[in-house]
């Protein structure tokens, strides 16, 4: 018998799993790689480019070859390392990158075409006529990638958690446990992270996260840890997430991340049956699996001799130890010094023989396994991600952690406590079949070709050859590649350079990255205070930032447009109510409240009488209009400032800046009350009568304030109009506002009116020529551009006053607010041009049909627009395939004198 097998005795194999449709048995605790080897399966994958048969090379997350697709349906996870997947009952795995089967793969023809698929072949397809690329593209796209992403939705939940600690220890080996014990003894809060299911020792007093990988180390001691609560493809416990991404903030971090053994470079070093030496020991010790019966060991260090002992103890035969050095430690196994492997021959699941150079001659060994050890690479990824420097150790032929700008230290093998190796430069008789990067099928000859074609920087070479890319990020290949590059260039490895270590250390699922932010939770939805009232009316909801607001309330089969037009016409003829709860509102209180508002608002505030309000707008420091709203003097030293919904958070930050940075000496309190008050606007020619009847109070004049009660709920009434009709904004505490809406809705309907939504609101405000922040106030417009300059406080002193004095802002050709009319619909967002092909002179910011009557109206920003009234232009939207002939007018289309809202 040859090839991998289970060592007789031990626990029963109670788990069932399937690989490529065949059912096998596994022991609890087996990885898929161990279970496959235990069942004699050595060939588990096909390589990326040449579709060469591949086996298991490693026993940990560094595995470059044994990638499989696990799970079914939405739980399918491609490119899963068989060495990092614990078998569970019912596991289903399939091999990748083969068709029709792993045993007979038509893609293997690529091996014959290898001369045409060498380094950079992809880039070379860009040369020549474009028509050729159209041909290549189909094949390249089809060949790209390894596993296939599932098309079904992922049914599982994912979670993000925050954690804090004094010490984060990454790695549960002996060095990590020792570091954690020391920290615990010092009374520190400790988190210990281990990729495997169990630690190598016991420890108490720490938060232990097993099956967890430290995927990234960022600034200020911030680490991301990916915890698997179930294995890939496995169904989680009901109510539990499948994976959890920890956001850990640690005072200091200890890296006990170990070292990765390096393979050797020779022809056929990628065959099933070539395995890292320490991986062979792992399979024997951890899983009772003997990866081969007759074993050759090739090494450049002492550590591999321990593998010989383990193989012999497990019942295997050590055929030979090939030591590239002049001498090695004493052993009873047959040792050949100054010996390196040259090539291999293989069978389906294991090797057949190993050909070696021994001294000046060659020799062939019959063997089913070749255990290789090319030295050890400390895992410096996290250290480097945290900004740490690397130092070169000649005795290890490896980089080790150097100084770190953060409180990050490395211990154990990660710090360089690994066996020394002999620095040898191998002469490769067959570089085309000597693989450096197994996952990307990059051979020594590929590196030679890239060098010959002028790629000198290691970063360029990486991108040209794809060396060190893909899911393993070159964990087993980088040092071999650097050694080869340095050899070709005639420089040392540190001089050859090093590519950048970037997170994540191992691949993360998109689900883990998204956490709870999936589906309807991609962003938190904000629900308005009167949501239930609106929902009863079955509105069309419109997302507006995080908010969802009623867009219209269709009756029966009404279209959106028909419903909105009916609602808007009701406002023009009788009355309508609309929810304006989302407007930003700020209580500005104190003896210096007026002085503060005159810093923030560009209009006059100080002379506002108690019980009166005024339209206002605010500027950024560069003089651009930032937001607009109203300011109301509720009492002698108490004001209410309102501003736009979309700018609410920005305005809160702006007010805080003005208060705490620009004018900390003022005795003023600024409190956001956006949600404290729910707001309902009642608009229309009958609004005053409706409100007077409901409150039993005479309503104030336009821009006046009243306090009253509706349905027993205290309300603040502000006589302000956005529609052009007589109107009132009615504010009540958010959790009390429902009955107020009910009373207003009943009274409005009784008067022949309707509730109206955002669509009708737009129709009405466009016709009236009111600007909206985000459309006309797009962050690039000044008060003059928007025809607001007459309202500017002449004394200045407000934020933005200095910015406005810049000469360029007075240029006559600036984009200025204009009105546009047309007999046909005007496409919103359209560019304004003299004729097709002419330069763009402006654009349409908002457009609507007339509420009563025919034709369309729009607002736009047009270069030098205020001097161009009467011009005829084309509003053209190539992306929508729409255009309209428009006439430039003043930006007010309804009740220019403003008599209706004052009635």
């Amino acid at each position, binding site marked *: 018998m040859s090839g991998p097998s289970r060592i007789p005795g031990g626990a029963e194999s109670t788990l069932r799993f399937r690989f490529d449709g065949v059912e096998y048995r596994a022991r609890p605790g087996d990885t898929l790689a161990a279970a496959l080897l235990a069942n004699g399966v050595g060939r588990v994958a096909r390589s990326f480019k040449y579709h060469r048969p591949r086996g298991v090379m490693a026993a940990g997350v560094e595995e470059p070859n044994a990638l499989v697709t696990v799970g079914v349906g939405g739980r399918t996870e491609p490119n899963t390392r068989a060495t990092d997947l614990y078998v569970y009952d019912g596991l289903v795995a399939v091999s990748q990158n083969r068709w029709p089967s792993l045993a007979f793969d038509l893609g293997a023809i690529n091996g014959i075409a290898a001369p045409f698929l060498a380094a950079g072949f992809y880039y070379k397809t860009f040369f020549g006529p474009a028509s050729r690329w159209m041909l290549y593209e189909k094949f390249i796209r089809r060949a790209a990638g390894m596993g296939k992403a599932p098309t079904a939705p992922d049914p599982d939940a994912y979670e993000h958690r*925050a954690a804090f600690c004094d010490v984060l220890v990454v790695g549960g080996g002996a060095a990590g446990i020792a570091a954690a014990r020391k920290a615990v003894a010092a009374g520190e809060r400790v988190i210990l992270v281990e990729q495997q299911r169990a630690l190598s020792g016991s420890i108490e007093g720490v938060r232990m996260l097993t099956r967890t990988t430290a995927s990234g180390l960022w600034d200020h001691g911030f680490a991301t840890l990916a915890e698997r609560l179930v294995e890939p493809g496995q169904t989680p416990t009901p109510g539990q997430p499948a994976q959890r991404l920890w956001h850990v903030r640690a005072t200091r971090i200890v890296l006990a991340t170990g070292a990765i053994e390096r393979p050797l470079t020779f022809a056929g070093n990628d065959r099933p049956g070539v395995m890292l030496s320490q991986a062979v020991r792992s399979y024997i010790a951890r899983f009772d699996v003997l990866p081969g019966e007759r074993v050759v060991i090739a090494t450049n260090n002492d550590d591999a001799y321990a593998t010989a002992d383990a193989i012999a103890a497990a019942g295997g035969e050590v055929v030979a130890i090939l030591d590239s050095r002049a001498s090695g430690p004493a052993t009873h196994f047959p040792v050949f010094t100054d010996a390196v492997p040259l090539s291999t021959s293989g069978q389906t699941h294991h090797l057949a023989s190993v050909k070696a150079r021994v001294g000046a001659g060659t020799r062939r060994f019959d063997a089913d396994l070749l255990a290789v050890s090319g030295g050890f690479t400390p895992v410096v990824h996290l250290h480097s991600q945290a900004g740490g420097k690397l130092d070169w150790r000649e005795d290890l032929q490896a980089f080790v952690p150097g100084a770190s700008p953060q409180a990050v230290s490395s211990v154990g093998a990660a710090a360089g406590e690994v066996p020394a190796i002999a620095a040898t430069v191998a002469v490769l008789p067959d570089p085309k079949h000597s693989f450096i990067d197994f996952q990307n099928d990059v051979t020594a000859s590929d590196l030679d070709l890239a060098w010959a074609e002028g790629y000198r920087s290691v970063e360029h070479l990486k991108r040209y050859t794809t060396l060190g890319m893909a899911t393993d990020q070159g964990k087993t290949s980088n040092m071999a590649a650097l050694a080869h590059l340095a050899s070709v260039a005639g420089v040392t490895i540190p001089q050859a350079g090093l590519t950048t270590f970037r997170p994540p250390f191992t691949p993360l699922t998109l689900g883990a990255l998204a956490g709870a932010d999936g589906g309807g939770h991609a962003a938190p939805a904000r629900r308005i205070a009167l949501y239930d009232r609106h929902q009863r009316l079955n509105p069309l909801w419109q997302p507006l930032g995080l908010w969802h607001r009623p867009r219209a309330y269709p009756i029966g089969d009404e279209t959106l447009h028909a419903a909105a037009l009916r609602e808007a016409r009701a406002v023009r003829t009788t009355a309508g109510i609309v929810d304006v709860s989302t407007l930003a509102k700020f209580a500005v209180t104190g003896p210096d409240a007026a002085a503060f508002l005159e810093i923030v608002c560009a209009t006059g505030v100080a002379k506002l009488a108690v019980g009166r309000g005024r339209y206002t707008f605010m500027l950024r420091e560069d003089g651009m209009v930032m937001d607009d709203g109203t300011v109301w003097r509720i009492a002698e030293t108490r004001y209410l400032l309102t501003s736009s919904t979309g700018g609410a958070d920005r305005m809160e930050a702006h007010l805080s800046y003005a208060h705490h940075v620009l004018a900390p000496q003022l005795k003023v309190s600024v409190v956001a009350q956006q949600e404290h008050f729910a707001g309902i606007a009642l608009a229309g020619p009958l609004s005053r009568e409706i409100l007077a009847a409901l409150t039993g109070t005479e309503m104030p004049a336009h821009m006046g304030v009243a306090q009253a009660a509706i349905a027993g709920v205290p309300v603040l009434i502000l006589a302000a109009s956005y529609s052009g009709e007589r109107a009132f904004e009615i504010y009540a505490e958010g959790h009390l506002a429902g009955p107020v809406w009910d009373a207003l809705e009943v009274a409005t309907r009784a008067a022949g009116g309707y509730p109206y939504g955002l669509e009708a609101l737009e129709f009405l405000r466009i016709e009236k020529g009111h600007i909206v922040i985000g459309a006309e106030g797009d962050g690039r417009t000044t008060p003059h551009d928007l025809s607001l300059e007459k309202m500017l406080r002449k004394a200045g002193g407000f934020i933005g006053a200095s910015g406005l004095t810049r000469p360029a802002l007075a240029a006559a050709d600036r984009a200025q607010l204009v009105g546009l009319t047309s007999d046909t619909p005007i496409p919103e967002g359209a560019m304004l041009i003299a004729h097709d092909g002419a330069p763009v002179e402006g654009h349409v910011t908002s457009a609507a049909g007339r509420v009563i009557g025919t034709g369309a109206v729009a607002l736009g920003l047009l270069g030098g627009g205020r001097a161009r009234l009467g011009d005829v232009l084309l509003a053209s939207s190539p992306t929508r395939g729409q255009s309209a002939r428009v006439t430039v007018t003043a930006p007010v289309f309804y009740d220019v004198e403003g008599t209706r809202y004052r009635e």
Partner: protein
Amino acid sequence: MAAAGDVIALDRWDAAPPDVAAGTRLLQVEPRRWWLIGACAQTDTLTAQIGDTGALSPIGGGLTRATLTGAGWREVLTISGCFDVEDPRFGVGKIAATTLHHVPVWIAPTGDEMCEVYLANSYAPTLHELWSRSATGQGGPS
């Protein structure tokens, strides 16, 4: 979860917070801002007491108070959070202004196995669902 209702923001620009009647809680949420909880009946008294040294502004109409009870409340608040809610020094009388699942919140422990989380009404359904899922899976607090 329930409407908070009884929360008033108190800003003082040149003095310490005033004495409040028994049953009223005073939580400092910013260097010069306190929240008065359960003080609505004292508004007139407090207004007279602070005079021109500060201002009271009601905010409770827009706030929801979520009460988490059970030993696992700290663990639940680590979900989609970014604050060290598990620090034992974060106890009764303290308040943290932070975010959970992108939602601005104020967390106020009220006992070893109880805390209050204040949040804007509009975000309440989002956080309620997040917590419901977490509590179901972890046997966490109610």
